């Protein structure tokens, strides 16, 4: 039964990787790459709320423990309890190292599409409450939206990010402390139900173990597949905003605003 969700996920990932933006990623001006990453940061910032929502909504203690563990990694401490830079700070640092200014990152407004993606994602989780398979549904959504696709997104964007940041193979570039690690440790890495005992588990795999345990019927499976499909669509629409249909690749956010204004006129 679980094979159905595996083949579904693989097909979604393939389609996601084929998004026009990722296909043309090499052609995008550097300034626009930064704008995409700055918009993408708004989704990263919302992850904590998504995780907190799922923790509060879940009743199953085992999943709660896993989800809590992943969330706590966002705010690491050393073993003396001293807080270390959070993943949010590392994201900010990576953006600075990629050439964004502090002002750009802090003052660029969230676009209506980015906001819509965040809002719709949150509403989707709320819509799960009261449903028969709400627990497994929340895990399926969380895993696909906040882990599996995140890793896919960063692996597509890494093609450009790696022009300026390294994964430590290179001595000439500054190390990526955020994008690279999330690309690896959020990754799907294996089919659901095929997690290896050796080598440890990525976040996606940690959640996949619960997914497999809780998908007890065809109905539960279909419910999860449906939620993953919506998560995919939301993320796909996020990247759509950087493409202007008539003009191909959208030149820049400023010009986009001009087009928007013109169309309103």
């Amino acid at each position: 039964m679980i094979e159905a969700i595996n083949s579904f996920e693989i097909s979604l990932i393939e389609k996601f990787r084929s998004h026009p933006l990722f296909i043309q990623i090499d052609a995008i001006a550097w300034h626009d790459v930064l704008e995409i990453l700055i918009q993408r940061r708004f989704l990263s910032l919302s992850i904590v709320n998504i995780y907190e929502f799922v923790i509060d909504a879940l009743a199953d203690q085992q999943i709660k423990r896993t989800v809590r563990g992943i969330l706590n990694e966002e705010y690491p401490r050393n073993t003396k309890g001293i807080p270390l830079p959070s993943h949010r700070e590392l994201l900010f640092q990576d953006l600075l190292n990629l050439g964004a200014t502090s002002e750009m990152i802090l003052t660029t407004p969230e676009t209506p599409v980015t906001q819509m993606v965040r809002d719709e994602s949150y509403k989707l989780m709320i819509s799960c409450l009261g449903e028969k398979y709400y627990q497994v549904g929340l895990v399926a959504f969380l895993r696909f939206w906040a882990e599996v696709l995140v890793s896919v997104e960063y692996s597509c964007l890494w093609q450009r990010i790696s022009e300026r940041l390294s994964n430590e193979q290179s001595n000439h570039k500054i190390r990526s402390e955020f994008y690279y690690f999330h690309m690896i440790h959020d990754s799907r890495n294996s089919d659901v139900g095929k997690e290896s005992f050796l080598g440890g588990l990525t976040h996606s795999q940690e959640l996949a173990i619960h997914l497999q345990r809780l998908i007890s019927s065809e109905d539960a499976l279909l419910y999860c597949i449906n939620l993953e499909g919506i998560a995919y669509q939301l993320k796909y629409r996020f990247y759509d905003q950087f493409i202007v249909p008539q003009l191909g690749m959208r030149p820049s956010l400023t010009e986009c605003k001009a087009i928007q204004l013109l169309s309103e006129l």
Partner: protein
Amino acid sequence: MHREYELTSLEIEVLMCLEENKCQTKKDLLETYIRSYSTIEEEAFTQRLKNIYKKFQITGKGYKLPQLHKYLTEKYIQHQNKDIFFSEIGLTYIYPTFPRDIFEKEIDNVIRSDNQEHKRVDILQTFAPNLNDYFEHLTQCIKNDVQVRILLAWPYSEAAKLRENVLRRYASNTISDEINICDCVIANLETLEKIIRALDNPKLLDIKLYDTLPSLAIYRAGDYMLAAPFLHGSLAINTFQLELKLNTSNQLIAHTLQKDFELMWQVARRFYPDPNKNWRNDLKILFTS
């Protein structure tokens, strides 16, 4: 042997007389006994011998004295072999728990040694609860040309989680209820990070992490080794420690343990808690990428 068989002191005298003089008959033994030890009536002597036969369960048919003699000789040879065997394989002592001061002295010996082959310290643990105790010693090792290799569990491995669950469930002391192996390994890495910072990127400190199951906890300094099992009921440093010499004629244990260490070293992955890097992120993906 007398404790094992609950012999009286007078019965021991008879056995000693038998062993010393190899008497084949009761009459010979009685005469020798009277001459060498003390006077005794034949009837009392016979009774004493009967008691000895009973305690040694000499119940076969025929003359019992030769049977007793043969039994004692076999036992003696077995006992002697055991002694030789243990020293040959290098087992010199068994401590009830980890002998902290003794290992410190052995590290000092390695530091002072002129023999380059002895100048190595190896530690194999899931995490070493006593690593901080050796902060100064390990620092001195590296300053004095000693190669230090530390092999610990990768904290995010399923094997580390399994060990944590086993300790939480079965270990008797209360500390184990709260044990978090991930934090414990990271605490070890923080200690090693301090050494790296103090010595400015020492080349002689090599650290690796494994995602498999460890064999035994091993602390080696030159030719000296302490080995302890990972029991369900306690941390490896809180159980018995086999003290071993590695330069022995019979390499049964020394070679096996060293070979296993080298195999684990080979399959483990190098990890360097560089004080100037955000190494916790690297740690998380060490076996994923």
